[in-house]
Structure formats: C-alpha cells, structure tokens
C-alpha cells in the first residue's frame, strides 16, 4: 500500500478494505477518500485503471458480491460506478 496513489487525482494515502486474505490480500477494495473512486483487488492484484479502461459489467458484480463489506458511501456514491446508480 505504500506509494500507491489514485491514478486520477494522485491522492495519497488510499484506504484499504480487506475482504479475503491468505498470505496476501486476495480480495479487497482500495478507495480514494478524495474523489471516492474505488479500485478492486482481485486474485491479489490491485486494479488501478483510470475510468476509461474500466469495465462496469465485470466490476459491478464484484461490488455486489462484497456488498456487506464495502464502505456504505462507496456503494452509493463510489466512482466511476456504484450500486445506487444501477438501481
């Protein structure tokens, strides 16, 4: 997590929420508290892509899956997409 910054507004530090952990964090989410963007960690890889390269169809189900563990504000206001917007 050190030196990891938001690719959009370059904010540091970012918030880490761990969903599943073995030796490393296998699933989780990284949140930029400044712009409310969220970045998934899947298969131990932080996916820090800018908005234009993100895939809503692929990432929203991830948010749905971990709904209980996601920060509430991100579920409702997270960028570039969130569960609220979908409904």
């Amino acid at each position: 997590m050190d030196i990891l910054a938001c690719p959009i507004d370059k904010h540091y530090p970012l918030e880490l929420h761990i969903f599943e952990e073995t030796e490393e964090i296998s699933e989780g989410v990284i949140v930029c508290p400044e712009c409310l963007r969220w970045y998934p960690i899947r298969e131990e890889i932080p996916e820090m892509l800018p908005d234009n390269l993100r895939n809503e169809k692929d990432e929203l189900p991830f948010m749905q899956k971990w709904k209980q563990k996601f920060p509430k504000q991100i579920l409702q206001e997270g960028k570039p997409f969130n569960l609220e917007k979908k409904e």
Partner: protein
Amino acid sequence: MENEKIKEHIKKRYSEIAKADCSSCSTTSCSSSCCSSSSCDAAPQYVAWKLGYSPADIESVPENAISGLGCGNPVALASLKEGETVLDLGSGGGMDAFLASKKVGPQGKVIGVDMTSEMVQKARATALEHGYTNVEFRLGEIEALPIEDETVDVIISNCVVNLAPDKLKVFKEAYRVLKPNGRLMVSDLVTHGTLPADVKSSFDAWSSCIAGALEKDDYLNKIATAGFKNIKIVSQKPYTIDLSKELRGKIVSIQVEAHKSS
C-alpha cells in the same frame, strides 16, 4: 485513429500473447507482437540475447518471464543500485522487473505497471512461484500512474512508450513520480523520418510498435517538455526484426537516459 480504439486493440493483442505459450511459438499471435522475435522458430532466450541481455541474466530469470518481446534495456538494468525503488512501465511478463529485483536486492523494491490483465496475472504468478518478494505488479495505465509523487528512484521501460497514444502524458507522469535526482532509463523504437500513411493508420502496426513510434527528435523533445534534464541517447541501433522492406532503415531502437533535477 481514436486513442480508445488503439488501447483496446493493444490490450487484446497482448492478452493473446500472455495466454499463448511463447516458448513454443505455435500461435500466430507470437509472430506479430511488439518487437517480437524474427522468426517463430527462435527461442525467446536467443532473442533476449540478441537484444543485449547477457547469458547470465537470461539464465537468472524464470523461463516463462522471457517473452522475447521488447527492444532490450540492458543499460538501464546495469545502472541499478542496491536499495533503489524501480518502476517498470509496461512490465509485461516481468522479465525486466525480475532482473531489476536481483539488482536492487532485499532493501530495494520493484513495481511493474501494465494495462493488460493477463500479463499482470502471468507476471504475478511467476513472482509467487519463484519467490520474488520485492516485486509487485499492478494493473494500471502508464498515462495515469497509480503511484505517489516523488517516490521512485529509477523508471525503466522496454519498448512500451511507443504503444501509448499520448507520450507526453507518459513522460509527465514519469517525472511526477520520480524523486528529485531520479532517472528515466527507457528503451524504445523511434523513426527516421515520417512513416507511410497506411502504416500510421493500421491497428496492427500500432500493436507491433511501429505506427505509434515517434520521430527521434520529437521523442526526445517530449521528454524535455515533461521537465527532464541531461537527456542523452546511451545506445542506438537500426531495428530490423519483422519489418517489411519499405520500413527497413526507418526504425531505430534507442536507449535514452534522462534526469529529474534536485
């Protein structure tokens, strides 16, 4: 051509390469990759040697990290010192990141950024399998780095910047994340003169590192515009691998060193 379409095409092409077994090179995707081997019969280790890597270096990295891609960046790797933090732009299968990992040692750190998910997964799996603990890979775009300001000692990159539609943005991002006195050590393809229009507009030429290549002076000027000082070409040679006759002599592989002021 639209930048987004170029990026989509490049991601697709390189995810195919990541999935293909390039050590046997039986698929067509191998032959048309960026700066790829001259023939599908050539072992990636042989290509790596032709690109300037020493046999000792080639033997020291996991075999599946050697893709035979790139223009080679041995000068940059040779410059690394113990304890340095290194960022590899477009880390692909991870060969340069793993070589860098050995040079910087346990006190140092290597971060690889690549926008192709399959490449990052492959590099990550290789790191785990071979016990590299000071290397991490992130899915990201080199035009929008997920890295804090002024935290990196050295940026390396091997034949990747030419794939980015907005090269000035790449160099500005590189400048931002480098510490004062940090250095950029990139290897890339540039052109002598302008390329034919049909080559420039071909997606395949983009993903083969040709259409996206800038004229040499233009490339160096963009590095200067981003803020770098003491920019010099440390080595260069004509690039001939997989080139049609009309392009021979027009493509040059260069290794550039540039510095951020203190």
